[in-house]
């Protein structure tokens, strides 16, 4: 029974499966359009944000970790002291997401009825910071300090053997909060995964208030009024950032191979690497010729693909589906939205191209370190 459960979980956590499932679930959990909202209502997914939803979610996470604790393989990764923050992250993210969303649903209902959000108070009816806020701050920092001290007494900070540049551990992992970026390295070269995309994440996040021109939902929890914005943010943050951290921490073993949580980290696991570049697909497999010696000619199809995706596609969208959006937010906002949005969605696209077509690079110019 428990072994079946373990093997099912192992199979489900393969990035191909888990990532696909989560990508399908995200628009159902945070429905960006009426169509998704209908499915959300039909299957009662909104119940996740009610009290039974909280208990079920917390119960499932706890069950998973308890089973994991008693599993000889998962126990090793689970009980590493530096992985404790990730367990904490999974619990706290779920709880606070639940808290925010359940408050948002309450406010959505009130706004539908024409009432003000719960947070609303008469502007003249204010409270004094001393004592009403100062005491709350004081109590919360005391409680947090107690938590931190208990954590520090119970779990010793990790200290491995002295640094030895001659012995590379396998796998070598970055600190846990960077494991999402390290996981991205599977699909993109370091210049993108390690430099350009992190820059885009920082600048893209800073650009959110300028791209989101929806004035509603300022200063109170709400979902319905800003559902598209919340969906995009949650997909980028929960799936492309936090979930990749979870994959990188728990599911990546020696040689950065995938291992299910209950699998033994076999350093000799053989995974066939037969990834093919787009240029090879085109010239060798389709046209049956050798690769042209001229680099630009060789990669011309790749350049056209990337150019079409990053530049032609937004223009096409602006003329068709996003016509209203383009008219509403103007060319500068639209361009930045497309730049950051398309870069973000290039990650799942590249993942699927890798999984289904073994595609290595769309543009492959290792001579210039320019691989996309």
């Amino acid at each position: 029974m428990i072994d079946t459960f373990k093997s099912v979980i192992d199979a489900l956590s393969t990035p191909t499966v888990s990532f696909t499932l989560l990508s399908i679930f995200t628009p159902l959990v945070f429905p960006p359009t009426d169509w998704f909202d209908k499915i959300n209502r039909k299957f009662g997914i909104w119940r996740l944000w009610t009290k039974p939803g909280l208990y079920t979610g917390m119960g499932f996470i706890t069950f998973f970790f308890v089973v994991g604790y008693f599993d000889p393989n998962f126990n090793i990764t689970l009980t590493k002291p530096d992985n404790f923050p990730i367990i904490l992250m999974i619990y706290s993210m779920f709880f606070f997401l639940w808290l925010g969303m359940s408050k948002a649903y309450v406010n959505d209902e009130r706004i539908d009825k024409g009432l003000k959000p719960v947070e609303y108070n008469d502007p003249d009816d204010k409270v004094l910071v001393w004592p009403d806020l100062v005491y709350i701050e004081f109590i919360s920092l005391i409680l947090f300090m107690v938590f931190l001290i208990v954590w520090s007494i119970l779990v010793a900070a990790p200290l491995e053997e002295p640094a030895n540049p001659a012995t590379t551990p396998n796998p070598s992992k970055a600190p846990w909060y960077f494991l999402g970026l390290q996981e991205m390295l599977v699909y993109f070269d370091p210049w993108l995964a390690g430099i350009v995309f992190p820059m885009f994440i920082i600048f893209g996040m800073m650009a959110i208030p300028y791209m989101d021109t929806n004035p509603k939902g300022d200063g109170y929890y709400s979902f319905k009024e800003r559902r598209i914005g919340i969906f995009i943010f949650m997909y980028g943050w929960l799936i492309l950032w936090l979930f990749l951290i979870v994959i990188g921490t728990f599911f990546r073993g020696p040689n950065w191979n995938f291992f299910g949580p209950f699998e033994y980290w076999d350093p000799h696991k053989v995974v066939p690497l037969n990834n093919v570049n787009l240029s090879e697909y085109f010239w060798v497999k389709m046209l049956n010729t050798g690769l042209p010696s001229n680099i630009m000619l060789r990669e011309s199809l790749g350049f056209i693909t990337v150019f079409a995706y990053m530049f032609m596609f937004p223009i096409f969208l602006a003329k068709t589906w996003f016509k209203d959006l383009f008219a509403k937010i103007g060319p500068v906002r639209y361009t930045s939205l497309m730049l950051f949005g398309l870069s973000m969605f290039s990650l799942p696209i590249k993942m699927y191209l890798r999984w289904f077509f073994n595609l290595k690079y769309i543009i492959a110019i290792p001579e210039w370190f320019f691989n996309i």
Partner: protein
Amino acid sequence: MAKNDKQKSLLERLGESQVWKSIIRSGVPKTRRQRMHAILGSVFLHLHPARLPKHAVKVGYTWCMGGLSFFLFIVLTITGILLMFYYRPTVEYAYTDIIDLTEQVPLGIMRELHRWGAHAMVLTVWLHMLRVFMTGSYKPPREFNWGVGVLLMTLTLFLSFTGYLLPWDQLAIWAVTVGTNMARAHPFIGHEGPGASLLAIGDINLVHMGSDVRFALLGGRFVGEATLLRFYVLHCIAVPFIAMIFMAVHFWRIRKDGGISGPL
């Protein structure tokens, strides 16, 4: 209505003493006026306004995460200073100093507090961001402060990353090696980045393994003695200094942008 001396509590008597009044001018904060003065007269507390709308003091609205992030920054500064008493950032001593710290120093949980506090700070900063996003508090007039917040989050991650190297164990150097290897692929200024070969005069490459951005970060071609010193200085002085400037701007702008967000 004046009470006579016997009815006054100890606190009230203290509040009337010259010492107390020299520190807290308004005496013991009991009346509405005194309570407002207690906030306005204190250099620390006047980060807050004297009065707030009701929703702003509810934990359910703010989650306290911004405040806890700042609190953790202070905890990390204090524990960090204590750790600096015992720690020497050299390849020779770094690791043994950490051992010494755990085994010889009485009540030695400073390193634990520092490490777990740093991890917790990453989480509280993320949760603060989630709260601000979910309440739409980044919307005008608070766009700029959201941007400052994103930079503070980046600085938090970078602070945590630079500190990761300091114990000088296997975990430290290989995590930092993996992390800093990215820098060699930086476009134009990393020696294995696209465009780096364009920066050349004739046959001479300007960007090579001994001159690129990774070399600048590590102070060498690999994670070694110079890297340890560089990360130590970045971790203890440079990044906290920058973070403190941004924090000042962040807190100041909360007030200048109309205080905590709320429904109109």
